[in-house]
């Protein structure tokens, strides 16, 4: 029984530091830490899509990998259906691990490199059946055809090889492979970024359809705010390993509060000549995540920063129902 009030996934105080070594040949010494993910907290409910948006290197992909234990967290908790996922992955029995692996799947940015060119589509999609042994072999064919249909491909595609497909079709194959183990939760990391503009809508619509049909939950990772708005019910904005703002999609896009979120949104060009941009230019570039800035990590680029911002780390404060912001002066922007 799943308690309705309990989120499907809970991430608590999750941290990942990567050690940085000195260049010495004999003695490798740790000289610093990449603060890739730094004490983040969030939850995802059943049948919900949560967007994680931020610029390159801010820690989005690492967050996804930590949830799936593809990277080992430095500290923190990941609860899936209320149970400790990190413990299951690290200490659980083979069967427990496999079960959890089936429940949580990941779809990657590049559908070109994530498919083995020597395998047919049938072999690619049925491979999880071999690994997980959750489908008996006389049912494989029927299941593969069903999955192909679900992602908008035809039965005859099963006998073909990845190179015979366009980028969009390959991403469909990747999604079918992820669905082969009947997951309840999918982490989609930039699933449309490498696709052509006219193909992106096909995949975004497919992801949304699958939610309606199968009750899927998603963590949708992207640097593209427009697609995040399109697909998510809730959105988290990440900067240098931290979540700086999180809210329902409507609130975040209608009333962004954090100065970083506001600058980010002002920088997105809108395909409408009547709506000219009013760019809030941020000075400089994102600082290094090795020894990130003190206090509020955004302070060196923030036009509102005071000495308090460089000294004290702001906490994620609630500014409205379902709206959290990490900024000392958020009340100015509400």
């Amino acid at each position: 029984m799943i308690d309705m009030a309990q989120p499907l996934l809970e991430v608590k105080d999750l941290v990942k530091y990567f050690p940085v070594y000195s260049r010495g040949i004999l003695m490798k010494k740790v000289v610093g830490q990449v603060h890739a993910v730094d004490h983040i907290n969030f939850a995802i409910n059943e049948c919900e899509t949560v967007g994680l948006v931020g610029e390159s290197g801010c820690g989005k992909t690492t967050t996804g990998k930590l949830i799936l234990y593809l990277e080992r967290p430095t500290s923190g908790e990941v609860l899936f259906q209320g149970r400790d996922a990190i413990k299951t992955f690290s200490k659980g029995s083979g069967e427990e691990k496999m079960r959890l692996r089936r429940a949580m799947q990941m779809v990657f940015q590049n559908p070109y490199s994530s498919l083995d060119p020597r395998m047919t589509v049938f072999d690619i999609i049925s491979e999880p059946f071999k690994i997980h042994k959750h489908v008996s072999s006389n049912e494989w064919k029927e299941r593969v055809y069903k999955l192909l249909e679900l992602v908008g491909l035809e039965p005859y595609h099963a006998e073909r090889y990845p190179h015979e497909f366009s980028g969009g079709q390959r991403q469909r194959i990747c999604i079918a492979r992820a669905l082969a183990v009947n997951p309840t939760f999918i982490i989609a990391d930039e699933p449309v970024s490498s696709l052509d503009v006219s193909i992106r809508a096909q995949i975004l619509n497919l992801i949304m359809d699958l939610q309606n049909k199968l009750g899927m939950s998603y963590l949708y990772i992207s640097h593209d705010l427009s697609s995040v708005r399109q697909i998510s019910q809730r959105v988290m904005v990440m900067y240098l390993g931290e979540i700086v703002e999180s809210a329902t999609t409507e609130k975040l896009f209608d009333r962004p509060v954090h100065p970083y979120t506001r600058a980010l949104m002002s920088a997105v060009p809108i395909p409408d000549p009547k709506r000219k941009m009013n760019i809030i230019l941020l000075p400089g570039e994102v600082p290094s995540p090795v020894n990130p800035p003190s206090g509020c990590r955004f302070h060196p680029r923030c036009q509102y920063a005071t000495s308090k911002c460089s000294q004290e780390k702001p906490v994620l404060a609630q500014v409205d129902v379902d709206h959290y912001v990490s900024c000392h002066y958020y009340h100015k922007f509400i």
Partner: protein
Amino acid sequence: MNILDVQNLKTHFFTEAGVVKALEDISFTVEKGCTVGLVGESGSGKSVTAQSVLRIVPKPGKIIGGKILFDGEDLLAKKEDDMRKFRGKKISLIFQDPTSSLNPLFAIGDQLADIVIQHDRVKKDQALEQVIKTLKVARLPDPEQSLGQYPHQFSGGMKQRICIARALLLNPQLLFADEPTTNLDVTIQAQIITLLKDLQRDLGMTLVMITHDMGIVAEMCKCVVVLYAGHVMESGDIETIFEKPHPYTEALLKAVPRLDQTRKLTSIPGNIPNLIDPPSGCVFHPRCQYAINICMEKVPPLEDVGGSHFITCHRWRELQGGR
């Protein structure tokens, strides 16, 4: 006045797998002092158009037809020697990928100064002065200190500023910017867009902005040329194109998510055509919701439909009545 007038340009690539018809019939004009958007998806022919104008189409590509008039002069009739003097000086290009277009083995100062020395036959210090001046124009922080540094020491955004400076070194009249922000983060993209807009205004330069992003076009450009599979679908000024778009442009605008609204996305069915074996008739017909028999049979001509709006579509006029 048109600084550039491209007429029926045809550039093919003669590969082992077959002839790739990268540009089949490209015609458009660029007004002096304007920013014109050249938009299309990958493979539509944007970069090959710029390469053709500069006559730097890589092998096995070849310009096999058409005219390219720059200030009235036919570039395709020029000798290669004369063309060399033209490149960088009259027409310049910011390459699509800043990382691979800078030479990793040479310091920034040296590789940029070389361009000035070769073209203007000046001494090295004079060339370096010009380099510093241009790096300042491109708003690279600390240009003097940067001269001795190598490309890998710069971030993506800074590399792009260096590439912009390199393209501006010889004060060109016409600048092609090939997807200058594609691999950059959105806040860095905003810096580069602002820079290019300011440069265009302050230097009175003509800018052809190559992009797949209709948002960038709407923001920066006065006129647009929409490409699809080696054909011009339409060209005209930005307001007209957003108001009375070609079926392809219309479909594209309905398929892209927008920051300012949540709406149902209408996806465009099918895939981008294979240019070795492109569709018959209108190249867009297999994916067009309005396609009828004639669209399969006959290539629609590029028609002047008034108000400097050019359209390649059998049904556009008729569809305007119903919209």
